[in-house]
């Protein structure tokens, strides 16, 4: 078929991968120019991606799904699989997001990490992440997707633990990897299910045969994929790692733990849409997990004083929205991806703003010790405000176009489901408005509460420009995408959905949402901008204390997983030493004991040996004679 722009998409992955390898292998020699190469790689990928995007846009809607064969990968005699890419509207949307936001964050990092002696290594890891993420979204089979899936997990591990000379950061990195790994078991099992039931692992094979799957197999695969998505996207009950993951440098939080990697779970669910179409149960499970997480994240976010952890909780909650939407079928899926894109922009912007504030505050993250920064950091304040308005869903900012649609879609359906899911989504919007406004007002408004020896200042241009671009996205992306018909553009990938009416009229839902949002923001204004914010967290009842401790998620994990695990390990170790090896040593001792007894006959006296021998011969002769007679 010759070289088409789509067949060049492999370059998108190879460029950052090669750059990462080079930066890691070159070692200190690359310290001086490493960051330049690090920025160049995703930028080059972005260019290639744009070429691909334009080319696909030039095609008819019907053949916008292009499978690119790269090389034959695995052939076991049982199944054979080629490594290939699926270039279609869904993957291209992701590629565009990853390379665009990724490039901006790389640029930002040049300044943010300027004083770190290991900046080259940082860029190597970031490049590795970009390559793995692109592989994840471009892969045309679940197995190749899994390579990217684990690759981003590894990059995330390396970057969370980038400052691993702090033991708690190293611990956070490990925790993230393990939680992801638990989810990965789900993906491995899902692939085993698929292989058994469909005989293949490519999207074309699996999703093509999805309608023929029996209900129970479809449910099994759907739930296994959901487990994987929960691990990667920090959804309930595998959510606990995301808060700790904020140990990584802030650009990492922006790129990996807000804009791209954590949304991979949503991608997986949306990509597997035809599978979920075959199973009502798994779809409902996805929606319920999303609903639980969106409330969980929102409530936790309201009680956190650590700026990055508020944003982390908010990410969790926003991904909960996406999962909820993804669980609602094709119509929801389109809005899930739309929200994913807008969220990628405004959340990355918010994180970069937070990083800028941290620079100003000498790496302080406690919002009770901030306040009044609007005056000293104009650009940061302005860009952060765009992101804030976007996440609140105020029209015409980006979040409005996606989140409001999700809430509306949640009200579609029959029976109890729309009412419960819709109400949760609606409530979540109100709480989101409250905690995000709390964050915004505590940081930028009210009285200055920072130490006198701090001298906050605006960050350098290398940092403010990416923030400005992302802020522009927060303002415009929503209506631009809505205007160009983004959901129609996705149809070749996720299928067409019939419009359905929600159980409440759409304008009523929108009005209720806006009302709740304004109420939440107003409450935050009263509490955190008008009233004095206490420097120390005020005493609180058991409920608030529980929320501050993330609903004791770590204690629960400790109780359910860690403690029994340790007990099991100790038990196994004891059994291994005393029972298994003990049995062997017991046989050894028995042999020695028998030897001791037998040894008594061997007294070393030559004549007694001779006597025994003689007697023995006589006995033998006697036996022979007796036998002979």
């Amino acid at each position, binding site marked *: 078929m010759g070289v088409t722009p789509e067949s060049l998409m492999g370059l998108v992955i190879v460029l950052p991968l090669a750059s990462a390898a080079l930066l890691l292998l070159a070692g200190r020699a690359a310290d001086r120019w490493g960051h330049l190469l690090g920025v160049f790689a995703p930028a080059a990928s972005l260019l290639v991606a744009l070429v691909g995007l334009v080319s696909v846009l030039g095609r008819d809607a019907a053949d916008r799904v292009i499978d690119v064969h790269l090389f034959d990968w695995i052939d076991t005699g049982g199944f054979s699989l080629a490594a290939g890419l699926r270039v279609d509207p869904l993957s291209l949307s992701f590629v565009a997001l990853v390379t665009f936001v990724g490039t901006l964050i790389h640029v930002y990092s040049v300044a943010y990490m300027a004083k770190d002696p290991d900046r080259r290594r940082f860029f190597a890891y970031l490049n590795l992440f970009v390559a793995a993420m692109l592989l994840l979204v471009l892969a045309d089979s679940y197995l190749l997707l899994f390579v990217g899936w684990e690759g981003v997990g590894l990059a995330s591990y390396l970057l969370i633990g980038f400052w691993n000379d702090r033991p708690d950061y190293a611990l956070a990195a490990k925790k993230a990897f393990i939680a992801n790994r638990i989810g990965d078991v789900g993906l491995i099992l899902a692939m085993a299910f698929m292989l058994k039931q469909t005989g293949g692992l490519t999207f074309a094979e699996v999703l093509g045969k999805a309608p023929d799957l029996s209900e129970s197999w479809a449910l099994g695969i759907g739930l296994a994929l959901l487990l994987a998505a929960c691990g990667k996207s920090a959804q309930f009950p595998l959510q606990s790692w995301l808060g700790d993951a904020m140990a990584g440098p802030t650009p990492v939080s922006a790129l990996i733990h807000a804009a791209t990697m954590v949304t991979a779970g949503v991608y997986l669910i949306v990509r597997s849409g035809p599978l979920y179409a075959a199973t009502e149960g798994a779809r409902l499970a996805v929606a319920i997990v999303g609903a639980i997480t969106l409330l969980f994240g929102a409530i936790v976010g309201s009680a956190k004083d650590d700026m990055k952890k508020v944003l982390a909780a908010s990410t969790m909650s926003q991904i909960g929205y996406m999962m909820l939407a993804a669980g609602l079928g094709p119509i929801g899926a389109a809005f899930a991806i739309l929200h994913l894109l807008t969220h990628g922009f405004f959340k990355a912007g918010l994180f970069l703003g937070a990083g800028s504030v941290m620079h100003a505050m000498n790496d302080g993250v406690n919002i009770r010790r901030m306040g009044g920064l609007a005056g000293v950091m104009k650009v940061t304040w302005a860009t952060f405000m765009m992101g804030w308005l976007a996440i609140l869903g105020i029209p015409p900012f980006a979040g409005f176009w996606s989140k409001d649609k999700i809430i509306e879609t949640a009200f579609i359906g029959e029976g109890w489901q729309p009412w419960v899911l819709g109400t949760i989504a609606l409530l979540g919007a109100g709480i989101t408005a409250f905690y995000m406004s709390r964050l915004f007002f505590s940081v930028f408004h009210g009285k200055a509460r920072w130490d006198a020896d701090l001298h906050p200042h605006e960050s350098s241009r290398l940092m403010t420009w990416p923030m400005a671009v992302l802020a522009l996205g927060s303002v415009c992306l929503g209506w631009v995408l809505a205007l160009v018909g983004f959901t129609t553009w996705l149809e070749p990938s996720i299928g067409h959905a019939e419009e359905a009416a929600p159980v409440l009229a759409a304008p009523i839902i929108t009005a209720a949402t806006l009302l709740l949002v304004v109420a939440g923001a107003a409450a935050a204004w009263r509490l955190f901008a008008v009233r004095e914010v206490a420097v120390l967290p005020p005493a609180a009842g058991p409920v608030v204390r529980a929320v501050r401790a993330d609903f004791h998620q770590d204690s629960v994990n400790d109780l359910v997983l860690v403690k029994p695990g340790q007990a099991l390990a100790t038990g196994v170790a004891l059994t291994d030493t005393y029972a298994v090896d003990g049995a062997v040593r017991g046989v050894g001792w028995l042999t020695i004991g028998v030897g001791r007894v037998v040894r008594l006959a*061997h007294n*070393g*006296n*030559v*004549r007694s040996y*001779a*006597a025994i021998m003689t007697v023995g011969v006589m006995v033998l002769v006697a036996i022979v004679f007796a036998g002979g007679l």
Partner: protein
Amino acid sequence: MIPYVALSALLFVIGATTVLLRRNVIIVLLGIELMLNAANLAFVTFARLHGDVTGQVIAFFTMVVAAAEVVVGLAIVVAIFRSRRSVSVDGENAMRH
């Protein structure tokens, strides 16, 4: 033929008793020689009885081996005597250490 066989048996018993009862290594060696020759006598007797020379041939072999054995055995005895100033077989537990 019976007397030859009886003599052979008698010689063997004397040799065996010597080996079992005497402590002096040299006497023990003599006992062993006695047993070997008792066996030789039996071989020759039966060879004659069956008119087959194989037994006589074996007797020659035994003599050669016995000669070699005495040479080596006495050499060992001399070596032991040099190191231990004794030729008693009961000296401590010689076989144990």
